[in-house]
């Protein structure tokens, strides 16, 4: 089928994802079209892999037609619900949760428009250039041809997800193999350059989602464009899109989307965002085993968001209970195992001296631009806002993610793979989009609030309305 087949395959996946989100967007207007498209693309690709697994398990095979028909049916169902919803009373579900996207912030001065064009242009050029190179360059990075693509190639030629040639049943989740396989089925031939087009598309989807979610917390178009640009500008993310074939970028995208939705929900109270957060929180384990832990890092923030909403006494009880539970669980683990293992990683009590590695990779090498400098400055300047009720869940999410990284860097044997800096940056890559979005909401919350008007209120947890960022 060639390039047209690939376009059809990826379009079908995106259409299914978008169609599933449309009812959410229509029900509450809590989602902008950018967010729907971004989340739809990433969610649609993930959904495609589940459909392929389902079809294979049911003995329907791995043909293009079966998956295409399933995606078509889901798209039709989603569109049907989206058409039906505004005409029926269930639409009234959204009465309390309708974030107002900063209408007042839309006033555009010429320099703001110029800057908006600059940042949107930079992000567009970035993703387009990366997509072009992915289209051209055959499979390049080591693990892509050594670990991941062999399985895809075997499955493409055998059309059997149970076939590992006895050598490649490594226990890794099959999502990225199935994305490559789906693209290859669309292409109708084995082409290990074009089968990776989903990677730059995922990067673009992350940028779109960031734009939409920044708008959902009241950022002006300019600030939303800066957020989307910063998200797509991170070199280590770019490299994983252009030298495609690893699972880290897709994992970073779905985790980043889950985290953004959780933060937006905690600020706006929009139930649509909560649905998005839960749905995308289920996706990281489909891409990589550590995705389980990344998904779990969302739990404390969700609990804090619930506590923030609860009456003070109830919140106190819950907080004491959760802290006690954490202490008991930690003490149990420590007493029972001392050193315990999760996949290849072994935890240990004695810390590694990893500071030099972290400093090199976060502050000196060209992996993250100024992400960590910006976080440092933001936390110093905006410490009070960071622990305010509105941002407490987001800050807890950030701290949990940093805590997970710190534990894996200092208290596991991951240091033994640090000679090539692979472990440290591939782990951090998953977390980086969340840090960018956190900087966006923190800077927005730290601005002096505009005088109350009909369309703006101060940013409070679950208020459902938000202040535009000037």
């Amino acid at each position, binding site marked *: 089928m060639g390039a047209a087949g690939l376009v059809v395959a990826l379009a079908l996946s995106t259409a299914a994802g978008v169609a599933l989100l449309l009812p959410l967007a229509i029900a509450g207007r809590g989602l902008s079209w950018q967010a729907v498209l971004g989340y739809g693309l990433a969610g649609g690709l993930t959904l495609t892999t589940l459909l392929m697994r389902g079809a294979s398990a049911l003995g329907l095979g791995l043909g293009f037609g079966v998956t295409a028909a399933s995606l078509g049916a889901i798209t039709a169902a989603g569109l049907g619900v989206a058409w039906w919803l505004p005409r029926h009373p269930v639409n009234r579900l959204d009465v309390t949760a309708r974030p107002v996207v900063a209408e007042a912030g839309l006033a555009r001065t010429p320099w703001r428009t110029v800057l908006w064009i600059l940042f949107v242009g930079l992000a567009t050029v970035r993703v387009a250039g990366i997509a072009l*190179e992915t289209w051209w360059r055959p499979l390049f990075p080591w693990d892509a041809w050594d670990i991941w693509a062999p399985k895809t190639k075997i499955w493409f030629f055998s059309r059997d997800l149970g076939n590992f040639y006895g050598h490649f049943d490594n226990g890794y989740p099959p999502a990225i193999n199935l994305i490559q396989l789906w693209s290859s089925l669309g292409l109708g031939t084995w082409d290990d350059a074009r089968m990776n087009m989903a990677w730059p598309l995922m990067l673009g989807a992350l940028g779109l989602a960031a734009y939409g979610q920044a708008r959902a917390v009241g950022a002006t178009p300019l600030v939303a464009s800066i957020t989307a640009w910063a998200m797509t500008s991170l070199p*280590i993310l770019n490299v994983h899109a252009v030298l495609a074939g690893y699972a880290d970028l897709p994992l970073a995208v779905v985790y980043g989307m889950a985290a953004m939705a959780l933060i937006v929900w905690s600020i706006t109270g929009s139930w649509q965002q909560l649905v998005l957060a839960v749905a995308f929180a289920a996706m990281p384990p489909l891409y990589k085993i550590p995705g389980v832990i990344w998904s779990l890092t969302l739990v404390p923030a969700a609990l804090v968001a619930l506590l923030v909403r609860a009456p003070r006494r109830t919140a106190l009880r819950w907080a004491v209970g959760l802290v006690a539970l954490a202490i008991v669980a930690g003490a149990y683990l420590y007493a029972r195992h001392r050193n315990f293992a999760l996949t290849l990683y072994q935890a240990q009590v004695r810390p590694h001296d990893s500071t030099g590695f972290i400093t090199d990779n976060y502050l000196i090498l060209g992996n993250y631009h100024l992400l960590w400098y910006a976080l440092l400055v933001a936390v110093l300047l905006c410490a009070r806002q960071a622990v305010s009720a509105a941002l407490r869940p987001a800050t807890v999410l950030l701290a949990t993610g940093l805590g997970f990284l710190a534990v894996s860097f200092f208290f596991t044997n991951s240091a033994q793979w640090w000679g090539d800096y692979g472990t440290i940056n591939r782990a951090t890559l998953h977390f980086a989009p969340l840090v960018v979005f956190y900087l966006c909401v923190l800077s927005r919350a730290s601005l002096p609030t505009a005088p109350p008007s009909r369309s703006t209120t101060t940013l409070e947890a679950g208020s459902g309305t938000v202040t535009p960022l000037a």
Partner: protein
Amino acid sequence: MRHVKLGAVALLAAFAALVIGYLSAAAEGGWFADRPTIEFLRADAEAIRGKSIDRGPVRLFFSGEDGGIVIRFPNRSIQAEDYPTLRLAARTDATPLDARVLWRRADQPDRTYSLTMPWVGDGAERVTLSTDADWRGRIIGLAIAVRLPPGSPLAFASLSLLPDTASSIAREVLTEWAVAESWAQYSVNYLHGGSPNPRVPLPLAAGAIAVLAIAFYVALAKWRRVGVSVSVAAAIVLAAWLVLDLRWQVNLLHNLTQAAGSFAGKSIDDKHRAAEDQQIYLLAEAIRRSLPDGVTKVTLASDLTASPYFLGKLRYYLFPLWLHPRPEDAVSGEVVAVFQASRVGLQEATGSLQLPNGQSLAVERLGGTPPIALFRVR
């Protein structure tokens, strides 16, 4: 508007303070002196221990049985105090057990002085010579000595003696920042963001300027008794971030142009024939074409199977054909491909392959296009 002015002043002041501060500390050759860098290229590098061959833009030196490589450079009269820093553009596969700069001085021509090089290993080594008390007077001979595992290569590109004047440092820093980083296997793990091991890493410089500018801005705002604006701090960070990103965008365009030159408009087969691993791809295609119908597994006898890169890539390209790397496991009916196997011999008289472990395999020849020979185990 007042905030914007304060922010701009703070940014300029931070930039000026850091540039002047750094040059004050680093410009050992003086602020206004103008001495040229002394550069030795691969043609100047002579092996006086170990062997050498030229390959592309580098000269490869191989260590001998004792692991030693000594590279001597043409004698020139160099005033040591004028050149406080040495930069070596060279790369090794294995981390050197020892690496030194060697020199002789005019005042004691029979004595060889040495200074240990801290080996970073990313292709650009930098040594501060001026801290060594013996780096003084007139230098009449210069060499480097590296100890590696026996038979290991060192790829030499250039050696430079840097005058460390203010202008030469500025040129060097800007040149290093402008270096486009082509894709390599390490790229998915980390990025230098310019030249490896630079004198001043660009992210560090941009970050330091941004942080200092924000500190200046906060101080100025407090002095002027105006509230601190987070927007100004954010704008300062964004400006520095933007500079880094524009450099990165140029780097990406450079790599895109390289990719276009190699792959644009080609079929996937032609792309692989043009890729950096083309030899392995061509070998895989040659094996595939030579095989009789119905063969699903081939065993390879080759010296190169010890290389994980070679074996992994060849196996990947041969899928869905299965590649087995140990000929001693081959059983009757299986196909064995022999390629660059110095320790595998064919005894024509008996029709058997002699394997490195002493085992002998009775085979019949299937053909194959040189340098590949194909056999079926009888």
